Each structure stands twice: as C-alpha cells, then as structure tokens.
C-alpha cells in the first residue's frame, strides 16, 4: 500500500530532476509513468490530509471507488500513450511529467481551489505539448479560451466561497442546501462554463479542431484519451456528486451537451480527413458522456468513458501514425491501407465497432445503459441520443469500408487500386491495438470483470454520504 500523494509528488520531483539531469529525462519519464501505472492499483480508499491542516481548513486528497477507477484508467492510458508516441517526444519529457502529476492530482483532490491549480497545471502543459506540432496560432486560440475558462471557473468558486465560506468539496456539499437558488444558478453557470472549455462542450470547443486536427503521434492520443477522460471525470465529480443541481438549470446544461453530441457527429459525417473525423467524434463522445453524468446515469457514463478512452487511443495513434508516415490523412487517398497493415486494421476496426456500440463488443453495454438511463427521463433525450448514435454508426462503417476496401464503389476491389501509402515504425502501435482490441472482445462476451469495478465506482459517485463521512471522519 502506498500513500496516494506519492502519485503527485514523485512525477513532480522527477520533473525537476529531469531539468537538471537532461540525459536521464527519458528514463525518468518512462520509469515514473510505469511506477504510477502500477502504483495506482495499490492505494487505499480514504481521505488524506496534506500538510497537517485538517479539512475543511486544509487541502485533502480523497480516494474513493470513483477516483480509484479513474486513476487506474488514466495512468494506464498515459503509459500506453507514451509507448505509442515515443518517436514524437521532442524534449517534452519534463512537460509530460508535470502533466502526469496534474492529472493524478485533479482526479483525487477534495478542494475546489486545488482543482483550479491542477487544472491550470494541466492546461499550461497542454499548451506547451500542443505547440510541439508548430501550429502556434491554433495553440494561441486554445490558450485564450482555456485561460478565460479557468478564470470563469475561479470566479464561480469565489462566489460560492463568499456565500458558504468554504472551498472544501465535502464541506461545501453539506452546506449547499443553505445557499439561495439565485446564487447557485450564477455560480454553477460560471463553474460549468469553465469546466466546459476542457471538456469540449459546444460554445467553448472551437479550439479542439486546431489542436486535435493537427496532432502528432504523441499529442493526438494524449489529448483524446488522458485529457478527455480527466476533464469528463472532473465534470462528473463536480456536477454529479458535489454540486447537485436541483433547478431547471440542469436542462440548460443538458441541452448544450446534447447539441454538442448531435452537431459534432454531423460535422464528423461531413469530414474527409481521418484525424478530423476522430476529432469530431471525440467532441461528440464528450457531449454524450457529460449528458449521462448530468442525468445521473453514472454507470452508463463510466462504461462509455472507459470505452471511449481506450477506443480513441487505438484509433488516434493509428491515425496520427498514418499522417506522420505519409504527411496526408485524406481517407480517399488512404483507401485499402489496412490490407497492408492488417494488425492495425483489426485493432482499429474492433475499437470503432466497440465505440459505436455493436453487440459482442464492450461498447454495447455502454450504449444499452445509456439508452436505459435516457428512456427513464423523458422521450426527447433518447431520441436525440439515438439520432446521434445512428449518424456515428454510419460514418464509422463508411470509414472502415473505405480503409479496408480499395477501389470505387460497385467495382471489384483489387490490390492494385489500393493506396501506395505505408505506416512506418508501427510495431508498438499494432501490438497495443491488438491487445486493446482483444480486451474489448473478451469484455464484450464476459463483461463481469470490468463491469463490477465500474458499478462500484458509479455507486460511490452516487453516494454523497459515504464521501462526506470519509472526509469529515478524517477530522
């Protein structure tokens, strides 16, 4: 058993050491990320007081079943992403170590201002990572939106602090019924707008196309899996458990997230580039997952979160690898590329089919639970989710047919009509794609070993009393 603060402290320490000992920075990066990936299995539930100031006065880290699940997923994803993108590190080892400290901290923290600090740590390292693709103007737009978003978040939590006199999550949750509705509406809107920038919700997601669409083999999987998982999980923690919305405001938020889902899936349908399609699909999935968190369907949201994270990692690493090998990712030019690279093709296909929720794959349980949760509310929400899912299914199937099958429609496909493009250095990517694909298939047939843990996490997210007693019991 290890103290969870080590998951934040050791990456930070290694980040400072990697500046001093530049030659060993790669060793630090892979060693520390392997340590956190293994170490996240060995942390115990509970509330951990930092610096001797007991909550609600000091900062505490909370490990419950929910943050435990997210920690394991995020650390495994981080390590696999590093393996996928090790050719594109470009001296970013220090930044990546800081990112690792930030993502571990933001998942566990029990304090709203501490969450803001970790959010900014992650955001600043994201700007530096994204600028390694040399699309500086896109990064600048991301920086402006991200900074305005985190300022709005800070404004929101300060309004809550001025009213309730506390920034501790557990303390604030217990004082929430005493706050008047008008203050809550104002503060929640600011907090949601702030978190929505990183979570890619509609009016704040104009940065995503420039960052995801221009990504290389490191930043593409990193942004679409680690960052996306963490930002959605934070929205789940904040709005699912702590700041429960009991007014009509929740319908305004759900309208935004559903619109994100529908519009992003439609935009993906109209896209012609592999990375653009996956970008818009990422935005759409973020909208769907956050809709589920807001509706209270934590179990469905978490299954889809896990499903989306691993599927996007495989697909984005193959897509960015294709781009970096050929300087082009137009799907018409890529027709039939999986004939040559059938291992990657198999992993990509299984991930895509699991993402759209076909039976026999793990994603099926996500889609069926999403629909069950949606049908329990009213008839409009499931209608929108079904329309979005159908659009998603159509463009993914069309994409897969194109990538496996060269030649024009109606003609007999032949090897000669296929693309001349190849994928270089694809060994690690194909092994990871095959392993993740195998897990998707096995989990689709016998889902028990994954679903049980996810159900425990969902129950702990829905149970505010256990959270309160674990934090306040620490006093």
């Amino acid at each position: 058993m290890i103290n969870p603060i080590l998951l934040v402290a050791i990456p930070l320490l290694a980040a400072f050491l990697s500046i001093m000992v530049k030659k060993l920075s790669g060793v630090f990066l892979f060693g520390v990320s392997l340590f956190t990936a293994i170490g996240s299995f060995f942390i115990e539930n509970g509330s951990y007081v930092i610096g001797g100031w007991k909550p609600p006065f000091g900062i505490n880290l909370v490990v419950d079943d929910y943050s435990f699940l997210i920690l394991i997923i995020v650390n495994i994803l981080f390590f696999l992403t590093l393996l996928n993108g090790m050719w594109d590190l470009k001296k970013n080892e220090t930044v990546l170590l800081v990112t690792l400290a930030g993502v571990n901290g933001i998942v566990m923290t029990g304090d709203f201002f501490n969450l803001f600090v970790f959010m900014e740590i992650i955001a600043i390292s994201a700007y530096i990572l994204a600028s390694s693709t040399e699309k500086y103007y896109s990064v600048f737009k991301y920086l402006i939106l991200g900074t305005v978003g985190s300022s709005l978040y800070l404004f929101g939590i300060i309004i809550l602090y001025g009213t309730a006199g506390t920034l501790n999550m557990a303390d604030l949750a217990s004082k929430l019924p005493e706050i008047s509705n008008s203050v809550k509406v104002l503060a929640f809107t600011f907090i949601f707008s702030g978190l929505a920038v990183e979570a890619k919700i509609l009016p704040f997601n104009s940065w995503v196309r420039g960052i995801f669409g221009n990504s290389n083999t490191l930043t593409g999987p990193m942004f679409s899996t680690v960052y996306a998982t963490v930002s959605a999980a934070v929205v789940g923690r904040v709005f699912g458990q702590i700041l429960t919305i009991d007014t009509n405001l929740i319908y305004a938020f759900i309208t935004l997230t559903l619109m994100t889902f529908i519009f992003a899936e439609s935009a993906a349908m109209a896209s012609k580039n592999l990375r653009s399609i996956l970008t818009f699909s990422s935005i759409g999935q973020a909208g769907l997952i956050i809709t589920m968190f807001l509706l209270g369907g934590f179990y469905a949201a978490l299954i889809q979160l896990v499903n989306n994270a691993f599927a996007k990692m495989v697909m984005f690493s193959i897509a960015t690898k294709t781009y970096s090998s050929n300087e082009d990712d137009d799907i018409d030019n890529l027709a039939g590329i999986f004939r040559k690279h059938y291992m990657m093709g198999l992993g990509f296909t299984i991930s895509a089919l699991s993402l759209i929720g076909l039976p026999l794959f793990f994603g099926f349980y996500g889609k069926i639970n999403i629909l069950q949760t949606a049908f329990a509310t009213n008839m409009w929400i499931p209608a929108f989710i079904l329309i979005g899912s159908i659009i998603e299914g159509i463009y993914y199937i069309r994409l897969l047919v194109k990538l496996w099958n060269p030649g024009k429609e109606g003609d007999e496909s032949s090897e000669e009509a296929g693309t001349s493009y190849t994928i270089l250095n694809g060994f690690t990517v194909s092994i990871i794609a095959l392993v993740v694909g195998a897990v998707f298939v096995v989990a689709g047939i016998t889902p028990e070993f994954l679903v049980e843990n996810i159900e425990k996490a969902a129950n702990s997210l829905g149970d505010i009393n256990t959270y309160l007693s674990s934090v306040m019991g620490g006093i």
Partner: protein
Amino acid sequence: MSQYLYIILMLVGIYGLLSQKNIIKMIISLNILELGLNLFIISTGYISGSNAPIIIFENDTNFVDPLPQAIVLTAIVIGFGVTAVALMLARNIYKKNGTLEIDEIRGEDND
C-alpha cells in the same frame, strides 16, 4: 461597493479579447481580465476597518479574511505562467508568419 468596479474591469478584458485583432493586445486584455478577477477575489475578503491578517497577539481577532489573499497569490503566479507561454507563442507566430495581426495569419487547418 468596489466589487462592481472589478467586475467592470473583467468585462473590459473580455471586450478586449473579442474586439482586438493584434496578438499582443489580446495578451494584454487577458491580463486585464485576470487583474479584475484578482481584485474581485481580494475584495470578497475585505472587512472595513480591519488589520492585515498577521497575528501577533492571540486575542487579536480584528483582521481581514486571509484565504482570498493566499488564493490571489497563487492565481497571480499561474497568470504569470500563462502570460509567459502566450508570449512564447506570440514570438513563434511572428517568426513563422512575419505578422502579429490575426487577420493576416494564414489558416492552420490540417493540411
């Protein structure tokens, strides 16, 4: 009620971000936004007629709320980091495009 003044300062910053077409001016607008926010946070902890929160005698209870000041200190450092990254990007944009006017920067769609 000086809080309203600081909120107006924040709105000036947002207006600058929306209306300015020069990257340096946008960074300055961002800083005005953060400055307004920091002043607003400080003002929430202010109690008229109180001392600075440095406790010398234990029975001294007449001091302002120290937590917003600690928060602002952290927020200033974070704002400094963001500004540094933004200026790094501005320099690279100028090296790549030869201009800081966003109307003259070629689009960076995935090519």
